[in-house]
């Protein structure tokens, strides 16, 4: 089980390989990579900066990782989330889930991503091409996605 909050980039292929290395009981590895898009709400995005709450972030990520392992039979879970300034095309977040069967791997991966997008203590500052920098407001669609899972905390 790997939970990391870091400023540097990560390697999805290496993380996927590490989740199953030396094992013969994993039949399914689902993964998700979130990237910075060059466009948001109709505006060109030049860069974005993710601020987080050091200490609380790691604690919350470990808590939700444990929750996912309680809900699905998972042999491995990896969560890597970056903070700091990133430009379009950069990787932001990685979730890898490994299970014997694909449904558990897919569901756990989607669950963790919905949670990360709506509950993890990260705040996004977007810089547009005109030089303006604006804090992104929370999206109702994301909250609805997380509410599917009935996570109450």
């Amino acid at each position, binding site marked *: 089980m790997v939970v990391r909050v870091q400023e540097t980039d990560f390697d999805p292929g290496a993380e996927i390989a590490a989740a199953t290395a030396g094992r013969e009981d994993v039949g399914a590895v689902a993964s998700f990579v979130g990237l910075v898009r060059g466009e948001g709400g109709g505006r060109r995005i030049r860069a974005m900066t993710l601020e987080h*709450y050091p200490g609380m972030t790691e*604690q919350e990520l470990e808590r939700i990782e444990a929750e996912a392992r309680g809900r699905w039979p998972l042999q491995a879970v990896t969560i890597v*989330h970056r903070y700091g300034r990133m430009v379009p095309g950069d990787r932001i977040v990685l979730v890898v889930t490994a299970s014997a069967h694909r449904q558990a791997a897919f569901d756990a991966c989607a669950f963790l991503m919905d949670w990360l997008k*709506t509950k*993890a*203590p*990260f*705040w996004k500052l977007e810089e547009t091409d005109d030089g303006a920098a604006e804090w992104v407001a929370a999206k109702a669609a994301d909250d609805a996605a997380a509410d599917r899972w009935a996570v109450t905390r």
Partner: protein
Amino acid sequence: MRLRYFAWLRQRVGVAAEEIDPPPDVRDVAGLIAHLRARSPRHAEAFGELAVVKVAVNQTHVGFDHPVAPGDEVAFFPPVTGG
């Protein structure tokens, strides 16, 4: 009591963290916010829109009715927009 601010709350207050020693009648988050609003115009502005202010006491999300005590770490931030 250690206060921490994130995102636009940090920018409006003007500091990322501060140590304060609130009066004894400050017993919960709501009372702390009332105390902070009176502290400076920047604090008053930061806490102007409470519908978009979230709070964590000792790194756990809580409601405005949650107690606060000396020694607590109290963090204020907007709704999260991660990943």
